[in-house]
């Protein structure tokens, strides 16, 4: 159920917690416990684009830290934060199962492998352009 709400809204708002609790016959605290326990669930709305950077060992071996620094410097979103313009949220993820093609990232749900700083810039640019075109049509 929480998966479905997050898929729909991008996050599970505080207001929804009571309704989930009622539906499951749980206490509100139980729902809160589950939501905050799992990394996947957000309780605040994310930016327009969500970039999940893999922080696990294999990606570290191929420079994921440099990638993290690059995103913070160039795109204004440090790990766990949303950029000031609300464009980009960067979240950590621990292995995407793409470790033979490290470093790996997931941008708006799509996984990319062997991501250099340049490739990431191109991907972000492309995502922004698609969004602009998408709303126009």
């Amino acid at each position, binding site marked *: 159920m*929480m*998966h479905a709400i997050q898929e729909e809204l991008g996050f599970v708002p505080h207001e929804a917690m009571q309704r989930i609790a009622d539906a*499951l016959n749980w206490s509100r605290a139980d729902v809160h*416990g*589950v939501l905050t*326990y*799992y*990394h*996947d*669930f957000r309780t605040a709305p994310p930016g327009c684009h969500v970039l999940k950077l893999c922080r*696990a*060992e*294999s*990606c*570290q*071996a*191929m420079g994921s830290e440099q990638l993290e620094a690059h995103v913070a410097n160039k795109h204004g979103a440090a790990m766990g934060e949303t950029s000031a313009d609300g464009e980009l949220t960067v979240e950590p*993820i*621990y*292995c*995407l*199962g*793409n*470790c*033979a*093609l*490290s470093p*790996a990232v*997931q941008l708006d*749900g*799509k*996984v*990319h*492998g*062997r991501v250099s700083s340049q490739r990431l810039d191109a991907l972000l640019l492309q995502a922004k352009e698609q969004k602009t075109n998408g709303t126009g049509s």
Partner: protein
Amino acid sequence: MTTIIYVPRDSAALSLGANEVADAVVREAAARNLDVQLVRNGSRGMLWLETLLEVVTDLGRIAYGPVEAKDVAGLFDAGLATGGDHALRLGKTEELPWLKKQTRLTFARVGVTDPISTEEYTEHDGCQGLKKALAMEPKEIVEAVVASGLRGRGGAGFPAGIKWRTVLGTSADQKYVACNADEGDSGTFSDRMIMEGDPYVLLEGMAIAGLAVGATEGYIYLRSEYPDARLVLTTAIERARSAGWLGSNLLGSGKAFDVHIRMGAGSYVCGEETAMLESLEGKRGIVRAKPPLPALEGLWGKPTLVNNVMTLAAVPFIVDKGGEAYAAHGTGRSLGTLPYQLAGNIKQGGLVEVPLGTTIRELLYDFGGGSASGRPIRAIQVGGPLGAYLPESKFDTPADYESLTAVGGLLGHGGIVVFDDTVDMAKMARYAFEFCAIESCGKCTPCRIGSIRGVEVVDRLVAGKNRLADEALLRDLCDTLTSASLCAMGGLTPLPVLSALDHFPGDFEKA
């Protein structure tokens, strides 16, 4: 004449643009009025060559790679349809040394067939195990698994047959098979590749397990990081039901077994079996104390067989060809094959299924081709985030359960993460504590609090103000974690930490 072209849909291939390659194939074929049938297969496991495109010719399947969408027009110009020459042409897929040197039992079909085609599955020996199992007594199936020597591939390496015996020996109105597809270890992706590349072999393995232990319901606990695997499995389950491979009447036998998927939500410790069961029941994935064993009291208090994806996917071969045929591979008490996964700073990363006991050096150099950066390989981590870091002097160790334990490591799920000589091992030790702190389920104080202390102590040790005392403190802390943790999250975090410290002491003395 129709030309058949294969472009993988494996998510590793997709991460390098396989969908764009597939689109280009369709576009270019149409522009040239060529009759092309595009098949989206699994990956052959040569992930550094993705996107690996194959074309069926009179000579057999010819491989091209790594192909990008922009190469496709040129490939057609070079006569792709008849296996024409091109800079990206690799030759006959089957003859490629990297594949030829492998012993593919579990991965026999992956990359070869269309993963969701039930026809191709049957044509390539699919369902043979299930057929035989339906004609066997539950006890006979269990004994075949015992004879195969198959051990749990999820990490702990517990003999599968013995666990099956335990569940068979229980009496209950309902039993379950729970497939652990949480695959949280960094450096591993074999579960993902089989679920995306040959989902029916897992479903068949689960159905056989159900028949063997007397369970009629199965659950796959799938990590949320694997949306593509979810799509493939969902389709495969529907088609398997229509084909009578799942459902209330398995192959017309009157016996029942069905499978459901449940998604995780990004928690490493939910891969621990009791936490997984909690999560499957919709709760916070917190580790339960054992006993009771899940085999006796698992899902909703009922006897539950918990096995990893790789364990269950090995079963159809074992039941079809006999336990001895599987046990003919491997060494000592590490029998059969293992789909090893080469990851991190490796030139030829991917999946290699070979007999257990293959040495680390063979895997790293014969298959892996050395580091991706071209620099010397300085360290590897085998067996995920709770596995030991090993230096070059240990590379001749056979990568089996016993030999790795003997050098202070563990095999885990068979992932090997490679680091070149730019790695800072003190940083990796610090990360091991950090990861433990992030993922701890919170039940045990040493794991929850000790891991945070661990990060601080590593920082102090590296700062070097009071080295001897800080090292003693670190070792003490590790002792506490080892002895006072309920599960391997806290219990094994000392392994990467101390192996880094013991094998690479210089990295902790930089200040």
